[in-house]
């Protein structure tokens, strides 16, 4: 926790600077022929999609760690990763929808990637609901950890959906099997900067949330001790 306290501020600063620089790059990047201005959504959409998946990965790993080592820190990180992941998932869905309107002519289509991403959002909310509605101490952490691990089957589905099924959605741009880079060289630098900024932003959010969770738990202990001393 001490470590988290120390890195919180630097992370925030770097995220802010990165976002500012990234956005500056984005608005100075060349406009795509076919896509026009809407291509700029890419720079939000892709990094937030990656972060949504990454947060779930973090959640899965810390859940396994919690069940295995009974480490409370792992549980705190797991609890913190959920709302952050949900936020990024929501941003991905929203930016994708906004982008979809000019590109595909519809806000929403039921293709494999979109559906599996929606499922991810439901999962995130399910995890939050489960944790808050089990009031037996200890049980909620364990139950959410188990559920998170089972829910991880959705990750490969999201990631490989564009390969496994014929979808509306773009196939992977980096090192795709087809080998045709859909992202041109000029688009790459702002994307990389934005990606780095989003990573810092995500880390910052998780750290803030984790410290809040830890503080809340600490407070409960103090509360109990105070009441015990009052006897």
């Amino acid at each position, binding site marked *: 926790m001490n470590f988290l306290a120390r890195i919180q501020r630097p992370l925030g600063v770097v995220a802010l600077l990165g976002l500012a620089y990234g956005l500056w790059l984005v608005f100075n990047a060349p406009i795509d022929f076919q896509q026009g201005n809407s291509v700029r959504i890419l720079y939000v959409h892709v990094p937030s999609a990656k972060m949504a998946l990454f947060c779930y990965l973090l959640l899965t790993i810390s859940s396994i760690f919690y069940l295995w080592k009974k480490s409370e820190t792992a549980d705190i990180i797991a609890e913190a990763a959920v709302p952050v992941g949900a936020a990024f998932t929501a941003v991905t869905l929203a930016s994708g929808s906004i982008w979809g309107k000019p590109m595909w002519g519809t806000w929403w289509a039921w293709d494999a990637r979109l559906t599996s991403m929606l499922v991810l959002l439901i999962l995130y909310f399910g995890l939050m609901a489960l944790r808050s509605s089990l*009031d*037996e*101490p200890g049980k909620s952490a364990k139950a959410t950890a188990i559920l998170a691990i089972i829910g991880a089957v959705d990750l490969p589905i999201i990631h490989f959906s564009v390969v496994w099924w014929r979808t509306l959605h773009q196939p992977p741009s980096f090192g795709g099997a087809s080998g045709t880079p859909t992202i041109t060289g000029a688009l790459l630098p702002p994307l990389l900067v934005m990606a780095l900024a989003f990573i810092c932003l995500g880390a910052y959010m998780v750290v803030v949330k984790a410290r809040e969770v830890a503080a809340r738990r600490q407070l409960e202990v103090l509360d109990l001790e105070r*009441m*015990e001393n*009052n*006897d």
Partner: protein
Amino acid sequence: MVHLAVTGLSHRFGRQQVLRGLDLTMAAGECVVLFGDNGSGKSTLLTLLSTRFAMQKGRYLLNGLDSADSGAEIRERLVFVSHNSHLYGHLTPVENLLFFADLRRLQCSDELLRETVSAVGLGKFADRPTRWFSAGMKKRLTLARVLLAKPALLLLDEPYSALDSQGVEWLNSMLNDFLAGGGMIVMASHDPQRVAALKHRPKFLQKGSLFDSKESANC
């Protein structure tokens, strides 16, 4: 003046006749303790006095109110502490008491509720869901209702079970105060020692009727 009068009360569950023409009269400030074997019908009798079931046979008057047509008024004047705690596991003690008070249309401030919770020794746990309370803690909370409602008649089904020795002392002093204030108590118990601290009239329930002593019951 007679305040509670039961005459010719019979009750059966399916084919099993549990109470057979039972009579009981009580005056204000009196305490009747029901003794009897397991399954003899003590809880059934208390439940009938609470008007939870409609009576199958017989007549029951409380303070002049007839259960046949004023069930709701009778219920308003009594508190029944049964084997079941009637607590909602997901609510805290304060919320449970508030719900109880609302159902009885009592006006209770939050402070009063908290004081009551503290009075039964649960101050520390006032804001935790009751599902995980220990048996005695639940019992204490159930008894706290009596403090709120100030009823005319108190029906207690084995109130001492699960209470620790301080709890028993507290309960007995509370009940003595209650009796002194003119309240009536009908209690079922298996524990003559603990009841001894109360001025009471023992009654023995056997074969569906009440007897004044164990001897007369056995013959």
